[in-house]
């Protein structure tokens, strides 16, 4: 069972398949993933369309879409996929290619989502563990939205829901070294 796919050499499809370990050509466009996906209404193209775009080799359109940035990796789609395709892994592969090859969407939501992940990883690099309050504050500063969630602050802080400090770990240095090594490994993977 196949649907239309690009007949020439589809290097984009090959790259996605290799990275994800899935076979996008298996998709027969039933759309079960779309009806299952909790965030498909936020996506430029829902998972079914992304799969078809990869089959057709539409790299630019796929990489500039917001879809893979909204994917929550909740695995609801892959659990119900009749072709048993690991769709979250496909989304992740598309995301990693976007990062490696410097695709940057102008979409504000995508920018915020990327910024959030960068700040989170900065926190871990610095402390070895997540410093929740500082992460939220930095996100507000770096997205120029200082008052985001400020209405929650009095209650959350007074009740101790979000503590003021962080218990950082002793081997924070080892984590910084790990970041260096992981970056090297990523470059080898390219």
């Amino acid at each position, binding site marked *: 069972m196949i649907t239309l796919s690009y007949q020439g050499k589809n290097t984009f499809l090959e790259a996605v398949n290799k990275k994800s370990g899935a076979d996008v050509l298996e998709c027969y466009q039933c759309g079960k993933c779309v009806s299952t996906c909790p965030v498909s209404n936020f996506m430029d193209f829902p998972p079914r369309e992304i799969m078809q775009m990869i089959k057709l080799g539409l790299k630019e359109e796929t990489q500039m879409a917001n879809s893979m940035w909204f994917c*929550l990796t909740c695995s609801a789609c892959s659990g119900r996929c009749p072709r048993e395709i*690991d769709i979250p892994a496909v989304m992740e592969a598309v995301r990693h290619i976007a990062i490696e090859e410097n695709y940057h969407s102008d979409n504000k939501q995508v920018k915020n989502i990327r910024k959030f992940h960068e700040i*989170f990883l900065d926190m871990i690099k610095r402390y070895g563990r997540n410093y929740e309050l500082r992460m939220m504050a930095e996100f507000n500063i770096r997205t120029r939205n200082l008052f985001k969630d400020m209405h929650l602050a009095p209650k959350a802080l007074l009740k101790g829901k979000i503590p003021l400090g*962080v218990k950082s770990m002793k081997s924070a240095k080892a984590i910084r070294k790990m970041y260096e090594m992981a970056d090297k490994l990523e470059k080898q993977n390219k």
Partner: protein
Amino acid sequence: MKKVTYFPGCSAHGTSEEFDQTVKMVMKTLDVEMEEIPDWNCCGATSAHTMNESLAYALPLRNLVLAEKLSNDTMTIPCASCYQRLKVTKVHMDENPELAKKINTAVVGEGEYQGKVAVKSMLQYCYEDVGLEAIKAKVTNPISGMKLACYYGCLLTRPKAITQFDSPEYPMSMDNIIEALGAKATPFDFKTECCGASFSISDTEVVLQLSGKILEMAKESGAHGIVVACPLCQSNLDMRQPDIEKKFKVKYDLPVFYLTQLMALAFGFPKEKMMFAKHIVPVDGALAHIGEVIEEPKKPAKAKKAVQAESEVE
């Protein structure tokens, strides 16, 4: 006395301190000794696997390697997200020793990964290793009268190939534990829907919509409150609940309990120890139902008689 390795995760020292505290109380009552991994690090959560695959494996791998230095054969993790990252790493490393070797080079000075420690969520450990009977045996103050919607979220049972635990569509392990404590688990169709996770910070609108639907369905199931076993699910459903109510002009008043808070309550610990003061949605209304008699909807008596009559004929 059982022994198990414990990985608390970052939120245990932050937003979910009450989860950490009550896990410790419950495990002690269940005769399980927990040994915390010394100087553990963050699992990398969603951000690492979104941005950098090698880092997403290396951060959990360090914890797995450290866990192997302790003498226990199993480790348990309260946070569903940490659990998922450590279990994914374990499964992928065990399947692909070459990859494990490569990633191990980023875990500097801690030794080689051998794959000898099983990784289980706190829910899974309670259900499989401790067991319902042992839990039931420790109940001194049953929480009967409470109707609760058990919410598992996406990461405790999915993907099946990784978690190898319970059903990815309609799990029952938490429901069974809740009923062992004397409460009634309501039929709840949104058990494994996603709450929106880290979008709480990066795009709050997503969480308001996704968590809003979960609250709506929980209310519809007739529950007095929701039970969770994940810090992010708890903070999205609890801390964001006033915003959700405002946005959709509804009133839910559904407190969001950690499973272990209710276990500790049923095991006879005083209410003050549960840190309920940290909750944004007050819990007292739901707890006031303890001791009430729940009237079961009457089963059609006719059908039963008909079956009896039939068997008599035979």
